[in-house]
């Protein structure tokens, strides 16, 4: 090989890859309008992004998988804990994470900033990002449940409880979130049918409820299993 051949390998390799990359960049810009719902990119959403950056949230939390790995990914946080759940965590992290081995600082956010952050997370949660992260995927979670039932030996209802994010707000035996009540004795006050109706759409039972409706989040089978599991806790 002469030096000239080597030079041409360098030039052609670099140019071909660059041309492909720049072409796809142009096309990506075109498609992102639809994939990321740019029509819903309102001023509060942008203000929320600024707030997110102002407090350097991204150096603990990942979002769309990028950032710090110290705290949960926030891509689907609205789906996971609901808007009220986000407000509670932002306003009083020392209460929300009292049981958690990992702590979050209280940034003393204004109500405006909290509202903007919620708008931002809602918009991010609706980005069409090839169904990531897997733990929040509606398509794949049932596989995770099946594995838990098979391998850990828990009941299907307990598997739903652990994998569908119930523990982000509720606790069992002192493990889990503090936003919702502890559920250790829920079965002594409510029947499986009552629990199922409540979980399906809490506001249908109690208009002041803060829990997000689960009717779209859980399948009929999952609603049934989790209610039967909770009714056994007495």
């Amino acid at each position, binding site marked *: 090989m002469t030096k000239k051949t080597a030079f041409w390998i360098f030039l052609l390799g670099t140019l071909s890859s660059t041309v*492909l990359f720049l072409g796809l960049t142009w096309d990506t810009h075109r498609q992102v309008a639809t*994939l990321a719902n*740019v029509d819903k990119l309102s001023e509060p959403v942008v203000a929320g992004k600024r707030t997110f950056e102002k407090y350097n949230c991204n150096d603990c939390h990942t979002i769309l998988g990028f950032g710090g790995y110290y705290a949960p990914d926030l891509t689907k946080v609205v789906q996971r804990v609901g808007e009220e759940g986000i407000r509670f965590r932002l306003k009083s992290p020392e209460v929300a994470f009292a049981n958690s081995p990992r702590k979050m600082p209280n940034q003393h956010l204004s109500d405006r900033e909290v509202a903007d952050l919620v708008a931002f997370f809602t918009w991010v949660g609706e980005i069409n990002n090839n169904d990531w992260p897997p733990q929040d995927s509606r398509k794949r979670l049932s596989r995770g449940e099946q594995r838990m039932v098979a391998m850990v030996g828990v009941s299907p209802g307990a598997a739903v409880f652990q994998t569908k994010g119930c523990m982000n707000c509720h606790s069992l035996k002192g493990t889990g979130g503090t936003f919702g009540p502890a559920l250790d004795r829920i079965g002594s006050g409510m029947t499986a049918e009552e629990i199922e109706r409540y979980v399906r759409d809490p506001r249908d039972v109690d208009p002041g409820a803060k829990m997000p409706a689960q009717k779209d989040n859980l399948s009929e089978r999952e609603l049934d299993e989790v209610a039967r599991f909770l009714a056994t806790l007495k």
Partner: protein
Amino acid sequence: MEYRSQKIAYWYFAAALPLFVLQVLVGLWLAVNYTFTVPQWIVDVFPFSTARAFHTNLLVLWMLLGFMGGTYYIIPEETKSEIYSEKLAWFQLIALLVTGVAALVGFLFGWTQGRPLLEIPMALDFVVVVGALVFLFNVGMTMLKARNWTVIQGTLLGGLVFLALLYLFGIPFYRNLVIDWYYWWWVIHLWVEGAWELVTGAIMAFILMKLTGVEREVVEKWLYVEIGLFLFTGVAGTGHHYYWIGAPRYWLWVGGIFSALEPLPIIMMVFDTMHHVKKREARIVNRLTWTYAIGCAVMHLIGAGVWGFLHTLPQINYYTHGSQVTVSHGHLAFFGAYALLNLTIFYYAMPKLKGIAAYDDSRGKIGFWTMCIAMMIMGLTFGVAGVLQSYIERVLGMGYMVAQSYMRLWMGVTLVAGIFFLAGLLTTVVDLLTVRPARAEAQA
């Protein structure tokens, strides 16, 4: 040292080393956070996010100082002329250090742009840009005046211009998070897998040529092929970061295919290094510099090549994206490719800059092996933590903190390995700053 103005490189290296130590110290604090429960009052005063901003920005700062110092060392020998302006080189070193310190102090008070690795606020960004322009002007003018072009120079200058240009894409505020991440990777990925690799290629080619006495013609031919392959795979390989950010689906293909090829140029670099060892025409005087050069090639291959390859295919990345698996890859790759590269040029140049032809490498050897082994263990423990996380959180779908609780043990082991790494690093830094001539019998 053949030229008076090469001396400036020494101060770049001497400034970079304490920053490296500080980076590792903050890294240990981060591991403490993962292993133990930090009290709320510390979290409120010095949150993890601030510490992480320290850790990553120090990495970039010390590595860039190393590259710049390396450039100022190499350019006079390549062009056979003095640096265009020593004053500008001094100005730029001080400007960069002041900016770096201002940024770190700013982070403590919440002055940040809030995007990981690009936390430096916009006002400071402009100082960085001025510093980079001064640097490029100085290096460019040296080459222009000397009119003694070589491929090594060209690659070095090309890499540095590319590096500076890409930085611009990280400065603006993007309204759309998807577009923000899209260009964020133009800085991060195209730096480490494009521009920095060009700088690495050039510096390694220079050192190999000097150490082995292999003909320039041969070294430069390899260099062309290597950087051609680096850019061919690395540019479109940026796509492996676009899988889950809301970019079109074809990135799964483009990213998958090009990243699968990314280890090729690195394998070639290892092969090239070994090839030069075999064909060497000069006697190796300083064996440690040599060990560093080979260590850099091998660890580069393991960290960047193998570890990167393991989780860039979309089918695997779907589960490992944004987990400690990435951290494992990041640590091994940065250490293997760039920390060892900088230390190689430090060990090559610093003794020479002090007028020592053959140096005593007994302490340096201990430092090298302690760091390499400790980092390898850290890569493995981060990796175990990452696999646990991927399985418990992503496959089983259990909560984030449930997965983290299983990982704490492994983060604790990482902390212990990190302490050993710090010991190795301190040995190395002290050795570099107080380098002694080898005893006469060792030279014989």
